[in-house]
């Protein structure tokens, strides 16, 4: 597949230009077009008792965003990149979805907000709704430290989590499209404790062997492309073990396929993708099963 266009969603509180700069390695994989999106939340300018629609406030917020985007765009234009920008008033979720469709982007990058309405947006479920409704992978960007330091090369050492679903197989293919900037892929699978319900050591060993073989198969896919790969089996709660593996193996980001279940189902099932979005310290690249390759 050809990756060309990236939608960079920012509220200027959770995601700054340094995050985008750290993704400039993506140019080696074909990305040459960045579209900025800033959504002015309707609540900030909506009708207030005695004041009406806050037009002056909207103008102020638009111009503040515009000054920032112009500065960012100048840096990118001078590198020969193509840049577009949207500053819109509305609800973030539909605006992200409609802009992604309008611009036909190949990747959505957004941050994780901690307070207010955007907490809901970036809190997990809505990210999954974007994945379900756009078929576009989403990179939930995280600053690595409370100090705000960015991971300079998030694609260098990704941890790829495999649950053997069609979505995780798609994630393998999608990750391969970044082959020019991948150094080492850490492929992992978590065996849930439920799988150990058998009392037969033989059966448990068979489970281990089967998963190990599957992991080796995935590693060989990357190795055939000249990318180093290593495999790891963990046991326990899926999200907790993914976080543990990411820390122990010094991963630069986490990559996971998403099932395409409706956000409502995901809420009840407590999906791993949602937990990654909400709680992981690392950037998370979420790949929907419906991604076009």
């Amino acid at each position: 597949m050809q990756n060309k266009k990236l939608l960079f969603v920012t509220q200027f509180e959770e995601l700054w230009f340094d995050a985008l700069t750290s993704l400039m390695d993506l140019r080696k994989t074909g990305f040459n077009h960045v579209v900025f999106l800033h959504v002015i939340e309707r609540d900030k300018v909506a009708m207030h008792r005695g004041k009406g629609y806050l037009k002056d406030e909207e103008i102020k917020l638009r111009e503040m965003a515009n000054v920032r985007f112009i500065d960012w765009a100048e840096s990118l234009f001078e590198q020969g990149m193509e840049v577009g920008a949207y500053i819109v008033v509305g609800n973030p979720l539909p605006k992200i979805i409609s802009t992604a469709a309008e611009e036909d982007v190949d990747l959505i990058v957004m941050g994780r907000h901690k307070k207010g309405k955007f907490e809901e947006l970036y809190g997990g479920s809505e990210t999954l709704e974007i994945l379900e409704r756009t078929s576009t992978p989403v990179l939930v960007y995280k600053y690595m430290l409370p100090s705000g330091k960015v991971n300079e090369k998030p694609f260098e050492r990704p941890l790829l989590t495999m649950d053997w679903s069609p979505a995780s197989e798609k994630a393998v293919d999608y990750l391969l499209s970044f082959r020019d900037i991948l150094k080492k892929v850490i492929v992992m699978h978590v065996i849930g404790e439920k799988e150990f319900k058998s009392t037969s050591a033989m059966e448990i060993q068979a489970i281990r062997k089967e998963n190990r073989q599957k992991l080796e198969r995935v590693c060989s896919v990357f190795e055939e492309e000249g990318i180093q790969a290593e495999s790891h089996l963990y046991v326990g709660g899926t999200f907790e073990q993914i976080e543990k593996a990411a820390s122990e193996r010094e991963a630069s980001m986490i990559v996971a396929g998403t099932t395409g279940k409706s956000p409502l189902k995901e809420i009840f099932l407590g999906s791993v993708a949602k937990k990654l979005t909400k709680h992981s310290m690392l950037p998370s690249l979420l790949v929907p099963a419906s991604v076009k390759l």
Partner: protein
Amino acid sequence: MSKRVLTVDDDPDIIMFVKTVLEENGYIPLIAMNGETGLSIARDEGPDLIILDVLMPKQSGIRMYRELKGDDALKDIPVIILSGIARRTFLRSQEALTEFGDQPVPEPEVYMEKPVEPAELAEVIADLIDRS
């Protein structure tokens, strides 16, 4: 016959401003909200002048400008760049694209940084249209 001027900008306020200047000075305005649509209108209508923003959705003014100057049917239409993006950035961007293998393009006839006064814009438009 009145001359037709194509304005390409995604900001409705700027479009209204330029449209007013054009109409008050006897020109026929043509409007596009992004480079992609702007290029299509330019090809269909063959305007006498193009006023072009840089930072826009779909296709930037930088790419649209290259398309215009690389098209034999359109390359002689004078272009005013009217943008918040600095002239130096515009020129460096064009240089970078040329270095990547695209054809070199000439500098735009006029580069104006937003905001501009109506009289200033009207004067530049008249000058370019008279010249052509």
